[in-house]
């Protein structure tokens, strides 16, 4: 049986709980400190990190043992958020030790996210951990676990392509624009219609560095409002044919039932653009841009179906990359398991060092009685040096055996060999040894 504390997680996420319940179970900033303090004061957990996002709320902690903590944690959480305990227990999950570690690593690696590969979660976990550190809710175990988790997240980020490729229609439009025009900074974007999709695309383009927007709409008020949000100019629809040549990218997302941008408009704009590429995106249903517009020279037209196909390709690629990411999670979780197993030898190591430290000190006291402080300091330095040298090999070996899952046996034999405190060894080995001695007699 393990002698060290166990890591646990109690949580709800987008898979186990419906949206309204998740909203109720969110830890509000003002309620969080009181909630964690009460868990720590009641001794339910020794350390805590609370992660609370729109898709998940999770409490990570350390207890010895943790297996029976679920009811107490559920009670505390339901009291904090005003949710019936029974309702919470129907939708939550509780994991202990290796499954809890693996879960955290999968969360950080965005393998458990609603959108596979979204990297926002890495920042959210970092923030939750930072809050816990600042408020001194974490110590040895969770510090090590979260640092290893963040390292795992970074590895997944840099070694796999799980976060690459757009998986939303509006972002796919921006990615495709980059494939035609390269860097989007300094480009001019014309947004026809002021619907939600168009606005989303404008947001992505703004983030990509576009600062010149031309908004075309039947209602001047909507176009003015977007122009005020993103910067740029508003135009009426009648101005579109004459102004389109200024645009490098045109995104059309109106609710019109017929064609808004004809092939003739586009050919004319392409001619006036003097060979500069023109990128057209039609995200309206039914289509706003005449299909023949894409045949004009140096003009590239993508419809909502093309964007859906691009998104689907990217989703497949992310799925492919998630296999690599899962392997990284397993590798890092195995490292944590070895580290945890190695912790079982810590009491033996401590006992070993204390015993010999004590011996050294007593011997120095005996020999250095009446000696000058300088001589005493020299003897102490010598004692420390020798102690470190003598204990280096057994300590290293003990730690290595611990990490190989031999902690109990190694501790027992070390205790016997070095005549340490009897409590350092496991009971079953001591019984086995006593039986052997009796049989020998």
């Amino acid at each position, binding site marked *: 049986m393990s002698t060290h504390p166990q890591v646990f997680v109690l949580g709800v996420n987008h898979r186990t709980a419906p949206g309204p319940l998740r909203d109720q179970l969110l830890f509000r900033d003002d309620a969080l400190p009181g909630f964690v303090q009460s868990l720590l004061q009641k001794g339910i957990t020794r350390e805590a990190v609370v992660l609370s996002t729109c898709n998940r709320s999770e409490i990570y902690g350390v207890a010895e043992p943790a297996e029976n903590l679920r009811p107490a944690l559920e009670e505390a959480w339901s009291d904090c958020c005003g949710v019936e305990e029974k309702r919470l227990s129907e939708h939550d999950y509780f994991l202990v030790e290796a499954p809890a570690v693996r879960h955290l690593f999968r969360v950080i690696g965005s393998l458990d996210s609603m959108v596979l590969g979204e990297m926002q979660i890495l920042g959210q976990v970092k923030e939750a951990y930072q809050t816990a550190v600042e408020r001194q809710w974490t110590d040895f175990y969770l510090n090590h676990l979260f640092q290893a988790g963040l390292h795992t997240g970074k590895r997944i980020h840099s070694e796999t*392509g799980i976060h690459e490729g757009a998986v939303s229609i509006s972002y796919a439009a921006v990615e495709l624009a980059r494939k035609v025009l390269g860097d989007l900074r300094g480009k001019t974007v014309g947004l026809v219609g002021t619907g939600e999709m168009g606005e989303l695309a404008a947001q992505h383009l703004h983030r990509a560095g576009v600062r010149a927007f031309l908004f075309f709409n039947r209602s001047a008020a909507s176009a003015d409002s977007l122009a005020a949000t993103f910067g740029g100019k508003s135009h009426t629809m009648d101005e579109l044919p004459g102004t389109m040549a200024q645009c490098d990218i045109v995104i059309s997302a109106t609710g019109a039932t017929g064609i808004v941008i004809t092939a003739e408009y586009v050919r004319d704009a392409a001619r006036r653009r003097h060979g500069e590429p023109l990128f057209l995106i039609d995200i309206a249903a039914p289509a706003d841009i005449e299909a023949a517009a894409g045949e004009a020279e140096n003009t590239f037209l993508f419809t909502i179906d093309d964007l859906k196909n691009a998104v689907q390709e990217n989703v497949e690629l992310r799925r492919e990359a998630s296999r690599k990411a899962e392997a990284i999670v397993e590798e890092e979780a195995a490292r944590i398991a070895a580290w945890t197993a190695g912790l079982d030898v810590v009491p033996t190591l401590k006992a070993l060092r204390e015993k010999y430290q004590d011996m050294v000190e007593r011997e120095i006291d005996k020999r250095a009685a009446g000696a000058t402080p300088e001589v005493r300091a020299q003897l102490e330095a010598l004692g420390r040096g020798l102690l470190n040298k003598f204990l280096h090999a057994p300590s290293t070996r003990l730690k290595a055996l611990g990490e190989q899952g031999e902690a109990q046996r190694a501790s027992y034999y070390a205790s016997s060999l070095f005549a340490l405190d009897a409590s350092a060894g496991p009971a079953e080995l001591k019984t086995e040894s006593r039986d052997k001695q009796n049989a020998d007699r």
Partner: protein
Amino acid sequence: MDIAAAFPILVLKGLLPVAYLAALVAYGRTFFSDRARENESETGPKTGLMGVLLAHSALLIAITLRFQRVPLWTLGEALLFLGWMLAVLHLLSEWSAETRRLGLFTLAPAAACAVPALFFLGDPIALPPDYLGAWFIFHIVASLASYAAFSLAAVLALLYLIQHRNLKQKHFTLTFRNLPPLDKLDRLAATWAFMGTLLMIASSVIGAWWVRRDSLRGMTPSEAGIFAVLAIFLGAAIARRALGWRGKRHAQWILLGFAALVIANSVLHGFFRY
């Protein structure tokens, strides 16, 4: 043959194909990576390219020392020098494009010139004194540099057409993901085509100076071919600027010019016959 003097050349001749192969494999791995974004910490292509440039430069220096002249005159020598030029231009193109994903394609022509050149490299041959003058060397070097620039432009134009096709037909394949943006390919191809044009003009002026020619009369078929090449590339550059013939049309002009260059140097002239 003096084995001791030829030994460094023999060793470098053995090393060069290995260096090219290693570099192309490294670039191939970068291009065929399933990652949409380039891994900037990847050092394989950089190391491979350094190996190529070192081995190739060392071989040219060793030949120059042994032959007591710049190796530009036989088919093997000219191809080897052209390969080296292509490798250097590839390095410059990589710097300006800020991507290693083009390396597989832009270094391949260098390998395609350098490796066959090794089979044509023979013992030193005696040259007429006129051919050893500085002007003639400048003429040939500028000429080979222009060929290298046109070759690079042709590779980039071909890649442009592939990426253009991917975009028009909405083929979101690995080639589509891993090739640079269309506009970047267009600008790179145009830049190298223009550089090649300038170098070819310089080479023609120096060549005319060398032979003291002041008119186009009595031009050989290969010289006429080279002038046709120059006209195509010059026309493409002017049309791009004046008429907006960019993108697909410009790429097609570059490929036409490159085809004319190959014909001028093979059918009309015979490979590097001086």
